């Protein structure tokens, strides 16, 4: 068969450009398989067309590329293989970081807990100490039959004043309970006296501290060997002879 005549009939162009009828196409494909000349002519024209098209490109809108990739979806996506080894060390890094953070957090937690614990411990100790003190005070007042009580009423000088004295007749310990006594001026302080056989015996001063710290129940005074009554006078702090009362009597009471 004269393939040149067939080739130059326009069938090659017709086929490549998609203008050939189905019958012509089948025939042409058969000719290509059979005659290398025909196949060569086809490829030659295809290359001409491709070159022509590549020389006359028009750029489409930039977003078309993304739209195409969006539409074809993730099917057939190439899995990156370099991700896995670095992923492993990455995991370790994160785990180590997490451990350090946890450790630091735990440390802080421990320190703050220990601090809080110490505070609570101190509060507890203080409370227990105070409780013991009060229990002892109450023991003084209740346990011993030998303890005598004297209610000391306010004098005309200070009618609202009122104190109580507890005197242990065997141990001779003296405790004062201040029910109501006005706070003295800075230059003055209260002095407690025992009256025995008409003579005043100094039992000591009520310190300023008492009026600051009101929570103290009983004030321990000097021992009194003998006593029939008790009294409190308001004295000047700079007084020289403290063995004799010089100021006003505020409260007085008999046993």
């Amino acid at each position: 068969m004269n393939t040149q005549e067939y080739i130059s009939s326009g069938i090659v162009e017709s086929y490549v450009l998609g203008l050939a009828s189905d019958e012509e196409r089948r025939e042409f494909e058969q000719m290509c398989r059979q005659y290398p000349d025909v196949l060569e002519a086809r490829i030659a024209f295809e290359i001409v067309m491709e070159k022509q098209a590549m020389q006359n490109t028009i750029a489409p809108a930039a977003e078309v590329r993304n739209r195409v990739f969006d539409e074809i979806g993730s099917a057939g996506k190439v899995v990156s293989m370099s991700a896995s080894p670095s992923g492993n060390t990455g995991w370790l890094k994160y785990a180590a970081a997490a451990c350090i953070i946890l450790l630091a957090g735990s440390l802080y937690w421990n320190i703050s807990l220990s601090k809080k614990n110490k505070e609570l411990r101190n509060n507890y100790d203080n409370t227990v100490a105070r409780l013991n003190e009060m229990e002892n005070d109450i023991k003084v007042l209740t346990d011993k039959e030998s303890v005598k009580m004297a209610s000391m009423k306010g004098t005309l000088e200070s009618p609202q004043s009122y104190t109580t004295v507890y005197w242990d007749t065997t141990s001779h310990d003296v405790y004062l309970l201040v029910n109501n006594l006005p706070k003295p001026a800075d230059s003055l302080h209260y002095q407690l006296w025992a009256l025995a056989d008409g003579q005043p015996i100094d039992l000591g001063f009520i310190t300023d501290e008492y009026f600051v710290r009101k929570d103290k129940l009983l004030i321990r005074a000097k021992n009194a060997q003998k006593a029939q009554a008790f009294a409190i006078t308001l004295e000047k702090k700079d007084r020289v002879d403290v063995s004799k009362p010089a100021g006003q009597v505020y409260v007085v009471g008999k046993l």
Partner: protein
Amino acid sequence: MKLLQAKSQLVFYPYMYLDTARYCILTNSLNSQTTYSEQELVALLQQRNRQAFGYLYDNYSGALFGIVNAIVTEKETANDVLQNVFVNIWKKIESYDASKGRLFTWMLNIARNAAIDELRSRSYRDKQKNQPLSEGLAFPGAVTDPVVNDVGLKKVLGRLKEEWRVLIDLSYFQGFTHEEIAKMLGIPLGTVKTRIRSALIQLRTLI
């Protein structure tokens, strides 16, 4: 030394079974400048390799848009058509048969057919109705006037003698069958076929 070489060959022997396509994935991931042979490209595309598809788009979208644009002149619609063309290339790549033509020829025909389908669609024709008539089915003679800014094949078309130009335009750029053209122009089918063949032969010399 010889023993060592033999041993290392043994060790790497299984990797030599990697087919060309897989090898290309590896090399391509190492070197983005890789160009593919047509065979490699087709193999990768048939394996749904997106990187190869990106390469295909980057290299051929301009050429395919050229042909789409020659048929569908409205820019936005032409872009939509090109999108469909590439989606169809991705979907239909399995059916590509290298024995029937080159990859580009196959893609060019997908592009041309998609553009002609759009041109024939009701929505596109409705759109064109609102435009001033330039080239239309009602005035096939008007088609013969070469438009100055035509590029590519259309430009080549302008150099054909008129009776051939009309035939190429109607068949290639507007997708009419030989029968339709024969009816449209009132000439025998055989004459249409012969003239189109002659026009194509002439066209080839002009490209």
